[in-house]
């Protein structure tokens, strides 16, 4: 064990300060949800709020999705590097640069330094997904983009406000370069409101506890988390664990992209090395180094402390190595719009390498991709509509039970599917089917993977356009310890006129006709353990539920029907 630092702060005050910090980031989240005008923010919770120390270490964070796990640190550091010695009370910074700790251009970070009697005490940070930031297509995410310049406005580490006065020039640049300027200004104001709330609440804490106690509290919280994380790592067997996986196409071509990782546990620390991964792809599934760090941290967090609030301390035992310019460390001008389709593979590599080491925290491979489709066009009344939906899918089996059916992928979190009744009342679409994908099914095993879904949309107006980008469209989710692989994701168009069926993995755009059906099929997760060890009752239960056919039961499990 590392030497335990001693703090003057008593454990009661520390715990109360901790509770208050969490209440502040919760309140920032509430303010964001209540004041944002974008469904992607108040419905999908595609934002995160946090407080960092003066030296850019996260102390408290709220998020509704995993995508933003600890992204603040690198982003904030890039601002600190750019403005060393030039940060003042009343400043607000803005940045959405994937090459400087950001994710994609749609994610805008608002950063506010908080001072106490002239000394920097902390930073309040808010990152939120804007519905449109300009670029080649509405929504700023062309699935076949080949450069960042098709993905909208990039504001790299700018000072947005001086003495609390927003720069009219920067606001004009934003307004003139996005498709929905009022919504953008609404979300910007909501973000600014959250960092002001953080400042006001920290001010109340300063009045009560003083700056010294607060600073000491921040350090103690971070150090305690670090000690806890080290204790978890120390209990794991030392060694190197490798994993390899395939990314199925980049949106421009279907060529498989092989990626790999080596995870080394040594004493109390854990090193993750992506050396050997290929250079950045032509298409937009690349991620920058900031997004890579977040992707790795989300799995590390799942391992060391899935239910504890996040702070930078948890990640102290973690080092990440990745050469520049790879698919996970893309640099200018590589596109990164669909970065989460790439970064989720970085998460899964680490997950795959560590699952056998710590089975009580991990499952086998899942359907992984957010499986997002866009259906857009005009209603019979001539009004424009756009339906954007991620699809739920099958997760991998666990070491002690079957995998989860139809839940959202790792990237998201508290994200709901769209109610069919709401959707049919709003869009010229009819859902014909929404049930488990039993055709391809999950990976067999002692414990089988969870089932994905099939969702059929009948298009009710001519000229509706379909766009989508599904990962794992060829390489199935991995099984573990003899469990079989699951099944791949795909979407397909079933033409009304001809009955012709065309399957897709990633699609830049296709116009559809009335009566055409878009079928979304998400994969089943990988299995855990050899199928011949599956309990007979579990096989019978799946047969009774009609999840498993008799043929498959015989083929996969050697099941034999009892003589009647």
């Amino acid at each position, binding site marked *: 064990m590392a030497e335990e630092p001693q703090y003057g702060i008593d454990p009661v005050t520390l*715990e109360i300060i901790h509770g208050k910090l969490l209440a502040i980031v919760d*309140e920032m989240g509430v303010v964001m949800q209540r*004041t944002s005008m974008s*469904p992607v923010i108040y419905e999908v919770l595609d934002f995160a709020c946090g407080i960092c120390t003066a030296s850019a270490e996260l102390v408290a964070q709220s998020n*509704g999705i995993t995508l933003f796990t600890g992204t603040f640190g690198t982003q904030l550091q890039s601002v600190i590097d750019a403005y060393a010695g030039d940060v003042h009370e009343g400043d607000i910074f803005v940045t959405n640069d994937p090459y400087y700790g950001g994710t994609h251009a749609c994610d805008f970070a608002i950063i506010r330094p908080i001072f106490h009697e002239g000394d920097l005490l902390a930073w309040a940070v808010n990152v939120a997904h804007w519905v449109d930031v300009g670029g080649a297509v509405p929504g700023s995410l062309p699935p076949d983009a080949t450069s960042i310049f098709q993905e909208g406005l990039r504001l790299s580490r700018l000072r947005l406000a001086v003495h609390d006065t927003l720069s009219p020039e920067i606001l004009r640049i934003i307004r003139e370069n996005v498709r929905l300027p009022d919504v953008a200004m609404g979300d910007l104001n909501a973000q600014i409101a959250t960092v002001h709330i953080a400042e006001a609440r920290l001010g109340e804490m300063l009045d009560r506890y003083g700056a010294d106690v607060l600073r000491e509290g921040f350090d103690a919280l971070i150090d*305690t988390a670090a000690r806890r994380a080290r204790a978890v790592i120390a209990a794991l067997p030392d060694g190197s664990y490798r994993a390899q996986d395939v990314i199925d196409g980049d949106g421009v071509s279907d060529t498989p992209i092989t990626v790999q990782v080596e995870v080394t546990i040594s004493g109390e620390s854990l090193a993750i090395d992506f050396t050997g991964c290929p250079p950045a792809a032509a298409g937009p599934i690349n991620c920058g180094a900031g997004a890579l760090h977040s992707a790795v941290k989300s799995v590390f967090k799942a391992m060391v402390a899935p239910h504890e609030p996040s702070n930078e301390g948890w990640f102290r035992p973690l080092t990440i190595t990745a050469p520049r310019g790879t698919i996970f460390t893309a640099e200018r001008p590589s596109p990164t719009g669909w970065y989460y389709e790439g970064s989720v593979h970085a998460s899964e590599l680490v997950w795959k390498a560590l699952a056998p080491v710590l089975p009580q925290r991990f499952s086998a491979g899942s359907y992984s991709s957010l499986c997002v489709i866009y259906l857009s066009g005009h209603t019979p009344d001539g009004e424009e509509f756009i339906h954007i939906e991620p699809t739920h899918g099958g997760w991998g089996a666990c070491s002690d039970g079957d995998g*989860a059916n139809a839940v959202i992928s790792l990237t998201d979190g508290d994200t709901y*599917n769209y109610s069919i009744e709401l959707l049919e009342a709003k869009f010229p679409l009819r859902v014909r089917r929404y049930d488990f994908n039993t055709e391809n099914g999950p990976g067999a095993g002692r414990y089988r993977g969870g089932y994905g879904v099939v969702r059929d949309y009948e298009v009710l107006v001519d000229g509706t356009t379909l766009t989508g980008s599904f990962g794992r469209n060829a390489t199935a989710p991995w099984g573990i310890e003899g469990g079989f692989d699951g099944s791949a994701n795909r979407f397909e168009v079933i033409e009304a006129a001809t009955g012709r069926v065309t399957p897709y993995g990633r699609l830049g755009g296709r116009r559809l006709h009335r009566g055409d059906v878009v079928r979304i099929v998400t994969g089943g997760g990988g299995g855990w353990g050899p199928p011949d060890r599956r309990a007979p009752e579990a096989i019978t239960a799946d047969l009774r539920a009609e999840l498993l056919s008799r043929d498959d039961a015989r083929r996969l499990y050697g099941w034999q029907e009892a003589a009647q």
Partner: protein
Amino acid sequence: MIRLATDVGGTFTDLLGYDEATGRIFTAKSLTTPDDQSEGVLDTLRLATGDGGLRPDQVGFFVHGGTTVINAITERKGVRTALVTTRGFRDVLEIGRGNRPDLYNLRFHSPRPYVERALRLEVAERIDASGAVHVPLNEADVARAAQVLRAERVEAVAILFLNSYANPVHEAACARLLTEALPGVTICASHEVSGLWREYERANTAVLNAYVKPIIARYFERLETRLIDNAVRCAHYAMLSNGGVSSFAQAVESPLSLVESGPSGAVAGAARIGEFLGEPNVLSFDVGGTTAKCSVIVDGRPRIFDDYRMEWSRISPGYPVQVPVVDIVEIGAGGGSIARVDDFGALTVGPDSAGANPGPVCYGLGGAEPTVTDAKLLTGIIDPDSFAGGKITLRIDDARRAMAALGKRLGFGVEDTAQAVVLLAEASMINALKLVTIQRGYDPRDFTLMVTGGMGPLFAARLGRELRVRRVVIPPHAGIFSAWGMLAAKPRADLRKTWFSLLSPDAIPPLEAQVAAMRQDALDYFGRDRPESVTHALALQMRYRGQEHSVTTLVPGTLDAANITQEFHAAHRTAYSFALPDAAIEITGIHLIATLDNPVIGSPSVVADGLTLEGARRGSRKVWGAAGDGWADAGVYARDLMPPDAAVPGPALIEEATSTTLVLGGQAAWRDAHGLLIVEEAGGTAQRKGND
């Protein structure tokens, strides 16, 4: 006439009676009988009639609340239930919403559905979003389903067809066919229990309703027979989750409406206490053994959840159901919350709880880890000799030993450790109460804080000070306040329907027609011919065009487009802090709250004759942390003997049979003419800041 309430809780069943002629109060408490809760109810009745002197034939109003429904569901003790649904949608019930709130749990699973896949049967039929028939109901499919269900020996069948909220004709036809084909089987079509859209939530509602209906029908039948056998022959009412009551027969039809029966009694009571005080905005806080429950009453009305979810937590999506339930937020902090120091020196309080069994260390029932109750005992707030009316003698030495062991790991003495435990419990309550109000667009400073539950009054003063509420109120019988609140509830029906229209003058005539039809439904529900006996409140669900979420907007005035528009902008501003004055507005739903005019519990009045503060004083006790650090002398007073409006300065302890109220230094407390105990900052609560 005597008004009588019984409330079945997890551990105890409470009885509270109020004689309107004499003002006399009857109370009784006995152990809950989990196998048949009506036995425990009868036990309390026998206690009250025996020693208590209650005459059952004088009872003119009987109301019953309890946990029968929620227990049957959470303990999975309902009947074998099936679901018949639209072809292609068999798995909607199991897929649910697919959200994963437990973000970093890579082994997360959605909650298990209440109907297994083999009993989820599909039939061909389809209604579209406008209510038009797209595919007619295939009756042969229904007949085949009936055959399977007969062979499977199901006892209840729920029916969920897509878009039945827009046109229930197929569900109704299917229900008819299944009723004929399956005699004795409970059939529940989703449109009978909810007129709202969202297929998964409506399916869950129908399934859970069907799942408990046969059990609840038998339960109420037994209870009714026993009451009549014991001379309680007046009308019998059931406490609903919406803050109102219904007849037993109505409750049996829609048992899911009883899901939060007990807590809803406390909310009905809070609204009534607000009326006594002339305070329309009440923050109600009830502290029990394991959790604390918080509810907001605005303009005299309890809020109804838009999306109530059973068994929801921060890491579980729970089971959403579409029944009207008062908006209650529960947090894991109560009297039994356990204090621990972990390997890294961090002190935590809750959410683990010692509950009632083994309970806190001081109960002497085997509890070994110190709890919040032990901390309150060791800081002098609880008197070990008069706890629970003197029925249990608390073992202060055991509590001290356990607290000392905890303190040793922190380097603290016993009292400092105990005070730390109290401070942490209070800090989590304060954070939760702030968030509950802020999330709903309110400021705690605009509220009166009403604190109940046996443990509540011990915390009330500091919560009030930290939240800077207008004042703190502790009603009489705080320990059994849910039962008291049930006596303040009226027969009530919440009729909710998904209904679309762009808001414009043209929308008003069809809206009026729809509302008139719902008013008629309310009259039919109450079995009344005369509309004068029913009071209505109308709320509309509305949104700006393009938005997903609707905001419930109370429309008190006339049904005209201008008035509705204005009310919506204001409601939207409260909920989301902005309004879009130029945007088009859509109506998505109608919520009619119908209340039958019925007398409720009156305001008690304190008889002042001969009462003096000196007479109420029982000496003093040393309390740790009541005024600055360390021990302070606190005057001890008997609440029942305090003369009206005579203020006691803090630090003080005000004792009653079921609880003790702590008053901090700098505060004053008095009993008002209704018998309510009020605590305010001596200089006015709103002006004060910081702790003592």
